[in-house]
Structure formats: C-alpha cells, structure tokens
C-alpha cells in the first residue's frame, strides 16, 4: 500500500491546527462573556455602593427636596436629590422638544427629498455633530452661546412676558440655566435622532410611496401620510435614544446649568442635573453616606437610560423586522 503523501497539516485531522477551534471558541466566549460580566459587575457595584443611602432614606434620596451633605449643629445631613432629578428631567425634556421636530425634518430631508449625493455629504456633517466631544459643546456654550442667547432671548423675554409666566421669569443673571442647557443638549442629540430617523424612513417600502403618489398626493402628503406613519415606531425609538443621551449628558450640563440646588420655577434660573451632581460632588464627598447617596443617583440614571435604551432597541428592531417582512 503506497504511503499517502503527507498533505499540509490541517487536513490530517488531529493536528494542533485542527484542535485550535476548541481554544478559539473558548477564548471568544470568555472574552464575550467578560462584557456580560462587566455589565453585571457595574450594576452590582452600584447597587452595593448605594446600599447605605438607600436603606437610610429609601426613595427619598431621589424625591427629597433637600440636599445638604454637610452636618451642622442644627441639622443632620439630608440627601434628597429632587432638585437634580427635576433638573435632569426638565433639561432633557427641553432638549427632546427642541430636537425632535428638527431631527424629524432632517431625517425626512435626507431620506426623501435630498439628492443622494448631497444626502451623503449632509449625513456626514450631521454625524460629525455627534463626534464632537461634549466638553467642546460646553466651552462653546459658556463663551459663545450663553452670552448670545442671554442678550437675544433670555433678557428681553424675562423682562416682558416673564411677569406673567413664571416659567420665563427673570432675573437672568449669568444666563446659565435649564433652557440653555436643554438647547445645547438638543444640538448634541440631534444627530442621534436624525440619523436613526433617516435610516428607518429608508426602510419604508417604495410601494407605500407609489400608492400614495398614484392617488394624486403631493410629495409632502406622501411623506407625512404614508411614509412617516409606517416608520412611526422606529422614530419613537430614535427619540427615546436621544432622550437617553440627554438624560445622561454630563459635561454640557455641568458647565451650563449653573449647578444650583435651589428649585426655581423659571427655566432661566440655574439648576442642577443628576449627572452633574455626581460629577461635581463624588470626588469631594464629605461622608460615606454622601458618597452612597451620589451613587444612588448614578444608579437611578443608569436604570433609566437602561430602560430607555432597551425600549428604543425593541421599537427599532420591531420596525426592522416588519419591514424586512414587507420587502421580502
């Protein structure tokens, strides 16, 4: 029997090479598992580190009105982060309210109306907005936007309508406050919402458009009545992702919101947000209870963004799935 020519190692069955698959697979699973472990460790660490404040105050850490970390003779330290929670919610709300119509417009323009070549270039520009580090938005906001907005909007408005609407009441001092923070955040979340909106609009099958145009609708009616509703779930998901980004945004808020624990009805007044509270106070916390209360605030932020992200992914995935079925 002729000796079989020795072929290159991998076909011969039981070489090291052939067995490489087991360690390879093991290695990838372990490293992929480490990402899962990382998320769990993050959650567990924060739950554990926040235990002290959670047992001491319960939900009051988030809903209490008074944040007073320093113990005095008159009062024990109290940790109620409602001013921060309120500031977070309001500034993110402003951001979403400003950004959503704009982002919807951009998404529609890029997906439906704009010539493809221009669309590529504009998409790149819009996505560049997302790449700019948030601290640069902060610098620009502090030195350029706030003074400008102050003179052009805040001061005249607070002096005229401010007397009747407490939201817009003066005085406008430094100009830092919820409204400017919200507007800067809106610029920051614009690309997130716009590019996702564009993507889901592109997924809408052409039959939707053709049917609408065939019955004599204008371009806008086609878009508004046939295309946008079809992608509605995806657009809502995009807005939720934007909201998540706005809630967690730290630097722009820290630099622009004024970091004040006082609750004021006016949107021009300084406030604080959960993220900026943590960024400002965690490294110089005065007691372990203080630290733990700050971590509770961070944990709440983590939880909220987690839920928002999960919901948004579900919605976008749902649209994706439905349209994949529609295109078949």
């Amino acid at each position: 029997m002729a000796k079989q020519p020795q072929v290159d190692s991998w076909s011969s069955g039981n070489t090291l090479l052939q067995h490489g698959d087991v360690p390879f697979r093991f290695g990838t699973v372990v490293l992929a598992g480490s990402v899962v472990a990382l998320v769990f460790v993050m959650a567990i660490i924060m739950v554990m580190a926040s235990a002290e404040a959670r047992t001491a105050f319960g939900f009051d850490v988030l809903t209490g009105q008074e944040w007073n970390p320093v113990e005095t003779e008159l009062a024990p330290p109290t940790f109620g982060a409602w001013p921060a929670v309120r500031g977070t919610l309001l500034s993110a709300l402003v951001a979403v309210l400003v950004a959503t119509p704009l982002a919807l417009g951009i998404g529609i323009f890029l997906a439906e109306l704009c010539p493809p070549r221009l669309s590529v270039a504009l998409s790149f520009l819009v996505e560049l907005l997302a790449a700019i580090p948030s601290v640069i938005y902060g610098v620009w906001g502090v030195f350029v936007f706030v003074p400008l907005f102050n003179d052009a909007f805040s001061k005249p408005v607070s002096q005229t309508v401010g007397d009747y609407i407490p939201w817009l009441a003066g005085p406008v001092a430094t100009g830092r406050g919820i409204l400017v923070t919200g507007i800067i955040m809106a610029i920051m979340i614009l690309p997130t919402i716009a590019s996702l909106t564009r993507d889901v609009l592109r997924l809408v099958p052409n039959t939707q458009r053709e049917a609408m145009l065939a019955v004599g609708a204008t371009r806008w009616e086609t878009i508004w009545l046939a295309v946008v509703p079809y992608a509605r779930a995806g657009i809502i998901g995009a807005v939720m992702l934007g909201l998540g980004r706005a809630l967690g945004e730290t630097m722009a808020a820290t630099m622009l919101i004024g970091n004040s624990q006082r609750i004021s009805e006016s949107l021009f007044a300084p406030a604080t947000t959960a993220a900026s509270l943590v960024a400002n106070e965690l490294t110089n916390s005065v007691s372990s209870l203080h630290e733990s209360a700050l971590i509770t605030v961070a944990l709440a932020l983590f939880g909220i963004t987690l839920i928002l992200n999960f919901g948004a992914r579900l919605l976008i995935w749902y649209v994706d799935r439905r349209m994949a079925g529609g295109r078949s």
Partner: protein
Amino acid sequence: MNSVPKNYRWRKFVDQLMRGSTVLATGCAVIPLVAIIAYVFTLGAAALSGDFFTQAYVPPGTVEMADTADATEPAFDPEDPFAGIGLDTVSEYDGSQPAAPAANPDDLFAGIGFTETVNVDTSMPSESDLYSAGPQGGVLHGIIGTLIIAGLGLLMALPIGIFTGIYLSEYRMQRFATTVRFCVDVLSGSPSIIAGVVIYVLVVIPTQRFSAIAGSMSLAILMIPIVTRTTEEMLKLVPDSMREAARGLGAPTWYSTFTVVLPAALPGIVTGVMLSFARGAGETAPLILTVLGSNIISTALLEPMASLPLLTYRYTESPYPGENTLAWGAAFVLMMLVLTMNILVRIATRNRAGAGR
C-alpha cells in the same frame, strides 16, 4: 368632478412650505456645527504659540512677577485655578527673583489632594494684571496625558472588543450571543459618567488614589462597545463564500477567521478602533472621577495625570482670561484629533464600501 381639486393650491402651498422647512431644519443642524468648528478654530488658533505645545501649566501672573514687585494686594492669593478639585498650592515667592515659569517644585503636589499652605508674600502681581494677562504656559501635559490615558484604554478595550465582535459575528446563531449583544447595547447606551462612577468605586476608593490607569479603565468601558460593534458589522460584511472557500480547503474556523475573514475586514475594524480612540480621547466626565487632573507633565500611571478634555473643562471655569484662551486652545487640539479621525475614517470607508458592493 373637477379635474383640479378645489384645495389644490392650498395643498401645493403646504407641500412647498413643509419641504422648505425640512431644508431649514437641516440648516439648523449645520449652522451650529459650522459655528462650533469656526469658533474653536479661530479662538483656538489664537492660543497656539511656541509655549502651547512645549510647556505645561504655568500659574497666572508668574512671569509678570518682576515687573509688578511693588504691587500691593496681599489679600489676593493667586490660587491655583484647579482649586475646585481639592488642593491649592500657593507658591512661596521671595520677591526678588521671578519664579521659574516651568513646573515649580511646590506645584508637584498640585492635583493630588494636599493643601499646602505657604505664606503669601506681598509681591504678588495685582489682580487687574492677572485678569488682563494673556495665556501663559501650554497644554503639553494634557496632550501627553490624553495620549497615554486613551491609548492605554484602547489597549484594554481592543482584545475584549475584537474577540467579542468575532464571537457575535462568527457564532451569531448561539443564544448566548443575544445576551452579549444586549450587554454591548447597555454599555454603549449608558451615560459616560456611569463608567467613571463604577471605576471610582471599584478602583479609586480601594487604592485610595486617583490614577491614570483608573482613567484608562473607565475609557475602556466606553470603547469596548464601539470596537465590538464595528468588528461585528465589518465581519458580517465579509461574504460567506470566503468562509466557505476556506472551510472547503479544510481550514478550521479559527484558522480561516485569522487568515481570511479578519484580514478582509481589517480596514473597517481599524476605522472602528480609530473612532473609539477619538471618542475616548474626548471624554471628560469619567476622567473627573478617576484621574482628577494634574498640573505637571507626568507619565506615572499610578498618579493623577493631566488630560486635554479635563484641561478644557478646568480652564473654561477659570476666572483668568489667559486660561480661558488656553481652554479654546485645548479644545482646538481635541477638535483636530476628532475631525482628523472622522475624516480619515470617512475616506477609508468610502473607498471600501465602493469596492465591496
């Protein structure tokens, strides 16, 4: 029935109006982008000088010492503008000789956490001089720090990110992959400050010190999802026929992955790595909680370190116009980094996408 509906003109008007407003909305996004870039470039360029890239922090007013020796404002103490972070070092001047502009020995503890109270001499420059002075010193310490911190973070994120990406792409049918994918989404969706909080609790508190390495860890948490995502996407773009061809020649999965699939996807993965580096280099919030910042050129990984975004933040909050100018300068350097990375990535992916399809 009319051939032209009654409300035709109205509908046409609405059509034009709304189409116009979408153009307007796009303009609303492009205007701030252009404004920010223009401001950072013009004001940042003003801060660029010989010292800017070659020197570290110089306390405001240091150089004018000799000229203003007779100034009488002992009450003003030229606090280190990094005051908010927990330590103030007041340098001891003896009035006769100007303090060296480079790192002065008293500043070595700057940023670490000691408060060193030293008597303040009467030879301080006057307040008005301090507030009108131009920028002094530079951000070399920040540039070095950013490169070290972000580079180290990338080194930590790369193996995890790339192998997780390989797992998600090559073993995509497994149920565990869904869990992994969800966790990657959680990481990419969670606010950057959370990474800082976790590393603060996990590393900074037990070791009792702020350190560059802790900062790298927090940045790694933020980089992992970006690297994973791009690796997965790029590997999925590699046509299955290539895998099948390798398999047909008898190559086991790992061999075909490393010699066929990964090389084919390499340009895309490199762009993802570059983007994650740019993202990490621009992050500020986690660094506040982990590396704290420093005023000197430091390469010690277990010590606090300076970084460009931190400098941008501190200098923006500084009352000295000179330092505000430096903030624009630091922002300029950051912006250049981010823009270069993004444009390079753009060029790379355009060629590849064109060839691939």
